[in-house]
């Protein structure tokens, strides 16, 4: 596997060595002669052109990023943009064409089957869109499956699985079979199974896409709660921006297998990298996402807004609105160290809120 030059698009939250997951120059080309294609000018072609020319499909193109321990990292993009491929590359369920993946300090790239299996057993777990449950096993046995696979004895894995059942709120359904449960409950089983092995990293591939909206919202809350309780690193795939914004500490936006932008939710909304992202985010209620940092302006004078209490720059616009509108003049915005970084006034706030109201119905 050739190690391609580290992409310029790399953004890192932490330096690579302490990251829970670190990805460099990852490529996946589907097709009969994918390996031979590397390093040829053909790779510069667009996805459509390449497919027309040689029948190869670029699933993932030169992707690099890092995920910090405990972070919820969301990968987002339209259907077909390569998200599923990317997440499978991270555990080598699909073999990368090029690039490296370092998970919890271990380089997966050159690993043999046995080592890799060990990683999958202990370090990462996945939750799938279509659950991937075993229909012939009861709920409790599905949850204990990973433990069974790694050879834990029956009593131990039963009690651990029971903990997980309780954790995801399935108490009482242990002895049912998956097909007797609703979709939401089935996905709870999927979640519990992933958590049972106590992995360092959890990966979700559009876990809630198949669920109806109310259940989906429940499940999202569930994930947030679990994240609070167990504090795992998570890589979360979705095509739903709303979900991404709700869950993600940081969001990676993909298009045609490439990274378009990586950043915190407010960065994505506040400074979309291009029209693709802007279109994407057009209907998002900005006041719910943007922080004051994105609407403030430099203080006109040193004492502007001194009369009102200062607000931290991480406050979401919607939450700051009342205070700002109630204040007589501009309000100061301070950063984590307390230094004044800007001011906002009624007009700054209203610009965000009013645009939103003019936006077509559908924004929430």
């Amino acid at each position, binding site marked *: 596997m050739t190690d391609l030059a580290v992409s310029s698009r790399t953004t890192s939250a932490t330096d690579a060595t302490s990251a829970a997951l670190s990805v460099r120059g990852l490529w996946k080309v589907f097709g009969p002669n994918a390996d031979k294609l590397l390093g040829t000018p053909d790779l510069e072609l667009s996805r459509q052109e390449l497919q027309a020319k040689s029948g190869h499909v670029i699933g993932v193109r030169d992707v690099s990023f890092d995920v910090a321990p405990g972070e919820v990292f969301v990968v987002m993009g339209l259907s077909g943009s390569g998200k599923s491929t990317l997440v499978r590359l991270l555990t080598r*369920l699909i073999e990368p064409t090029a690039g490296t993946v370092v998970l919890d300090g271990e380089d997966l790239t050159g690993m043999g089957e046995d080592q890799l*299996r060990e990683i999958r057993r202990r370090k990462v777990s996945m939750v799938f869109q279509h*659950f991937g449950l*075993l*229909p012939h096993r009861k709920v409790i046995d599905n949850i204990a499956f990973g433990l069974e696979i790694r050879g834990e004895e029956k009593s131990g894995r039963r009690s651990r699985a029971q903990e997980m059942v309780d954790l995801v709120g399935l108490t009482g359904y242990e002895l049912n079979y998956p097909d*007797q449960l609703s979709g939401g409950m089935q996905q709870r089983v*999927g979640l519990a199974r992933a958590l049972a092995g106590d992995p360092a990293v959890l990966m979700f591939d559009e876990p809630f896409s198949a669920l109806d909206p109310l259940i989906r919202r429940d499940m999202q809350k569930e994930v947030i709660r679990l994240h609070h309780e167990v504090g795992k690193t998570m890589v979360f795939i979705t095509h739903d921006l709303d979900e991404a914004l709700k869950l993600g500490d940081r969001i990676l936006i993909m298009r045609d297998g490439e990274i378009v932008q990586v950043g915190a939710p407010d960065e994505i909304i506040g400074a979309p990298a291009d029209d693709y992202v802007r279109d994407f985010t057009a209907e998002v209620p900005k006041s719910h996402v943007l922080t004051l940092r994105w609407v403030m302006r430099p203080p006109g004078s040193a004492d502007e807004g001194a009369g009102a209490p200062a607000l931290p720059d991480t406050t979401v616009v919607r939450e700051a609105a009342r205070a700002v509108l109630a204040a007589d003049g501009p309000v100061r915005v301070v950063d984590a160290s307390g230094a004044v970084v800007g001011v906002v006034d009624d007009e700054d706030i209203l610009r965000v809120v009013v645009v939103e109201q003019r936006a077509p119905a559908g924004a929430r």
Partner: protein
Amino acid sequence: MTTTLEPARPAPTKEAQPVAERATSRRTGRKLLAVLALWVLAWATLRGRQTLELANADTTGLHDWFNDVRDRVQLLGQDNWFFHGVLGTIASGLDTFVGVLQEHLSSVTPGDWLGWFGVLLLAAWVTYALAGLRSTLLVTVVLLFLGLAGLWTDGIDTLIVTIVAVVICMVVGLPLGIAMSRSRRTSAVVTPVLDAMQTMPSFAYLTPIALFFGIGPACAIVLTLVYALPPLVRITEHGLNSVAENTVEAGRSLGVTKGQLLRQVQLPMAKRTIVVGINQCTMAALSMATIAALVNGPGLGKPVIAALQTLNVGAAAVAGLGIVLIAIMLDRTTTAASERSSPAGQRVAAVGSPGIFGGRTLVLEKLPRWATEEGGRGTDRRFLTPSGRRLVLAVLLLPVLVGAYYSTRYLQLSQFPDLSGVPVLGELTAGPLGGHINDLTNAVVDAISGVTNGFKDLVTAVMLNPLQSLMSDLPWWVMALVLLAVAFLLGGWRPAVVTLVCEAVVLGTGLWYDAMVTLTMTLVATVIVMLVAVVLGVAMGRGRRADTVIRPFLDGFQTIPAFVYLVPALALFAATRFTAIMAAVAYAVPIATKLVADGVRGVSPATVEAARSTGITRWQMISKVQLPMAREALVLATNQGLLYVLSMVVIGGMVGGGSLGYLIVQGFVQGQLFGKGLAAGIAITALGIMLDRIARHAAARFGR
């Protein structure tokens, strides 16, 4: 031979009592153990008493009565309006019809209508018109092989008999299948008859049929009908019944009549399935080729039987290969033709539940891609538009007709030339090819017969003999109770009732002891079949390459007449019960393997991937995910394996299997034992239905 009398019970929903379910299955296990313990105890104390063993030459009143009936019918037959008038007319009509076809197509005596070249051209042209280029190539190669191997006349005769039989099957079977799908009562009445038609070994009724229809093509065709009709009827019924409920409902909501529903909705939607039925019917018809030769039926069975007389394995194998190739040819061509004739949207495999494939027929459920017309090209891209093809066909017609005409004029185009002297092709002519096969067989036999005989002795000593003693050396009523208890514990009261009836029938035939010996061998063979089928099936289900390599062998073993491999089997294992078991295994493994492979392949890829993400090993994947999820297919494979094994009992009787199989063979050749043979046939049918029902209900109960 697998449909139930009553529609299979849906598995009880687990929603109701998930916890109770567990307990049931555990309790059943304990009860079965208790039955086993009592059984062994009874064996230890009562062994050797009331076993109902009947000496070889002895007969019972029933057997003599059968003989009597036969004699009376035969006397009547001379001038009875039915036997002589009706059946006789049908027979001579069929004989004449086939005779005319033979004269024009297969016979190569000079002056006939068509020589081989004309037949070849016409066959290729028709295939191209109906099925496409690949099929045309296949047909050409197969026909050329037949000519080359000196099997031209016999091969074309086989085709004639098969096609005539299949056409008659369609005329009778399609309306019958439709009637069964529309009326529960018809279905309930006809199904057991179909069961009997398929499980009753043809040897048992061959003589009476020859009595009514004379010897020759008519008799061969009637024999073939008996065996080939059931799969067509069953699959037609199944296809119509399984048209989606909501489609039927939608039709009803528009106010269609029953007839409209059938014509406009059900028949078009079931078309694919019905085509599969016709296909199965064709394969079943072909599998009768050898047996038909025993009543002077024309075709490739003749050289097979002739070669067996002199134990010429090579010659038998060449003729057998002819049958295999014809089977593959008909199978692939009809499949391609039906695909071509249905609109693209309908091309989804409509095979549905393969549970209805019958007795000795070939299952073609999912063809490997290379074998279908579309194979090789990913999509439905054709070289020619339909109108372009029509033009090509029209243009080609002229040379075809000219060629056909010349084939009646020139010796070389009429009689297939003898090419045995020609360098490469010469090796494919019957003599050398048979010689090579003989050499190969001898080499293999010499190399491994020591090992195989040791293996035979081992299996016989540790498995076969104890089990046989346990099942047959008991007072008959103990074993009857054991079977009843097992049927009840595994399947509930319904199969228990069936078992009771079947036991009564077996008892009535006076052949209880032999039936138990046969049952023992059947069970042992089925166990071996499933062991092999799981290994091969898992390999095939998991890998394309394994599938491509293994599948042609399976097709071959499924269609090649067992007579071909009897002699090598005898050389490897001597004339023993184990040889009979191995012959049955060779025949039943293909179907079981294909079903297992399908099941494994059918496991949802999403589940497989999810399992993989947990760091599962290959072995864990097979044992914990793929096999359990393919449980339904495993059950079906076991059921079919069992019935296929049972259908080889007669063949087994010829290689040392003794018991019922031998009695049937004996009844066929010795007039005074006809009745006993027929009784043995009935006993086999009873065993088959009993095992089928127990397996089926047990599957509905425990197969999740």
